[in-house]
């Protein structure tokens, strides 16, 4: 595995990019460092979504909920309990994965669009609870000024922590995608009926994929708190879920790193074009239409150097 990774043609570009990202904080303005850190958080969230959407073929339309659950869990534990901070950091992803298990367990009984609809409904239910439960979650005010460990108190500290966690998570995800589980999941995406006929319990594999993906979404939620020190109900709102879904499509959902690229493009567009016009999504739309709707591009997105698999982006 290691040998294979070392001989990959992506190794040197990855090392160079990582090196640049490591030396950047002292050199670049704070705002750019912050924007990059936000891109890392969003990239992890998008990559986690792609585990279920790209590799699992499940239309998890409301993935943002698990991001929010992770963020709120750590926020509540740091503000309302005296437990050590690392407990909260670990509890975030675990709580997200637990919600993933419950919601996913209900949804995998359905397929395709029905799965998507039920997933949106159940996710919106969580959002409504967080939005309404003033005493506990702060309602639409959210929670602000969340304490952080001193090592993460500076922006640079947070930046390096987020980058480190992102790289670690990507490596684990890469392992999973290349594992027997990963290849079985992809087979179940392409042809669930055939998979059942060769002895694969398709639903259970899909559920495991959802739990893994929601765990990583929870990690992203924790990283968001590390960066922003606040949480608010918009983290669980369906619009955010839709945005990360678009990022997956934009970057190419049949590729491993594509969704990260999509996240970087969208966050950058919102940040830099958003300063000039609130209609920054127009540029995004102009971008996506040719990339994803033309049959020739079909599902491979913007990704440079298409993967060997022919894209068959049939949607429903």
């Amino acid at each position, binding site marked *: *595995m290691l040998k*294979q990774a070392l001989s990959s043609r992506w190794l040197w570009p990855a090392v160079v990019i990582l090196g640049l990202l490591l030396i950047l904080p002292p050199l670049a303005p704070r705002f750019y460092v912050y924007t990059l850190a936000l891109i890392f958080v969003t990239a992890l969230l998008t990559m986690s979504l792609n585990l279920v959407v790209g590799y699992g073929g499940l239309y998890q339309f409301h993935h943002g909920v698990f991001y929010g659950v992770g963020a709120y869990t750590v926020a509540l534990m740091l503000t309302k309990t005296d437990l050590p901070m690392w407990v909260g950091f670990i509890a975030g992803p675990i709580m997200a994965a637990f919600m993933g298990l419950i919601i996913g367990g209900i949804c995998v009984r359905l397929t395709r669009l029905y799965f998507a609809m039920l997933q949106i409904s159940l996710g919106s239910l969580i959002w409504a609870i967080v939005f309404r439960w003033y005493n506990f979650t702060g309602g639409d005010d959210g929670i602000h000024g969340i304490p952080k460990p001193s090592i993460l108190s500076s922006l640079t500290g947070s930046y390096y922590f987020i980058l480190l966690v992102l790289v670690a998570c990507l490596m*684990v995800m890469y*392992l*999973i995608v*290349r*594992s*027997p*589980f*990963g*290849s*079985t999941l*992809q*087979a179940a995406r*392409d*042809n669930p*009926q*055939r*998979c*059942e*006929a*060769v*002895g*694969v*319990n*398709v639903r259970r*594999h899909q559920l*495991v994929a959802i739990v*893994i993906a929601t765990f990583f979404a929870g990690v992203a939620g924790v990283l968001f708190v590390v960066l922003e020190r606040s949480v608010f109900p918009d983290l669980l709102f369906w619009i955010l879920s839709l945005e990360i879904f678009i990022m997956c499509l934009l970057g190419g959902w049949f590729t491993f790193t594509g969704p990260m690229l999509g996240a970087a493009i969208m966050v950058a567009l919102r940040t830099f074009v958003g300063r000039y016009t609130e209609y920054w999504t127009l540029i995004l739309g102009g971008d996506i239409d040719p990339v994803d709707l033309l049959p020739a591009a079909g599902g491979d997105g913007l990704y440079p150097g298409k993967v*060997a*698999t*022919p894209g*068959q982006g049939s949607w429903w």
Partner: protein
Amino acid sequence: MLQVEAVEKSFGDFKAVDGANLRVGKGEVVAVIGPNGAGKTTLFNLITGQLRPDRGRIIFKGEDISRLPPYQICRKGIARSFQIVDVFPRLTVFENVRVAVLSQQRKSYRLFSPAQSMAVAETKEILESVGLSDKAGEIASSLSHGDQKILEIAIALGGQPELLILDEPTAGMSPEETSATMELIRRLATMRGLTILFCEHDMEVVFSIAQSIMVMHQGRTLIQGKPEEVRRNREVQEAYLGGE
């Protein structure tokens, strides 16, 4: 080994299978024949769990399997191919078969070890035995129709079945491909000791390799017997062979 007893299945008002009976003994090659719409594919779907029977029992090695989901039936030792090509189009030929082998070896939940080095020998052996070794690296959807049908059989073999069910294995094949496929099936039966149940329209094929033939007509079993008996049976001749 396999016994189907008075199985029925309706879709709305239409009785697709209306009293089917079938016996398959260990090591036998059994064919199911019948005109289009006789219920052959439905019967196979009932046996392998894609559908559940309304009535009747399906017994495999002494156990009633008629209520089990497909993946559990597969683990009991029944594997099948499909009439309409049904492979994993985006995966390579090798990966197609490996999915089945990994599942059979109960390795499909392993998360952190690379799949690349797993189940390689078993998969290669299967590809070798069906003659697809030289196409192992190709994407399944790029194969010719005939090769995809063979790949179907290879995927089924990945489950190390005792009973192999083939739904029209030679449908859409050229005469040369057909005879090569029949030769393959014969070899699998003798070399691997597989029990094989298949359905087929080509009568020449059926009568040349089946040891027992079951005739279906309008969802019912007319007769099951040795090829000579079936050929002589008057009811069969009237219903199916067109009364010689």
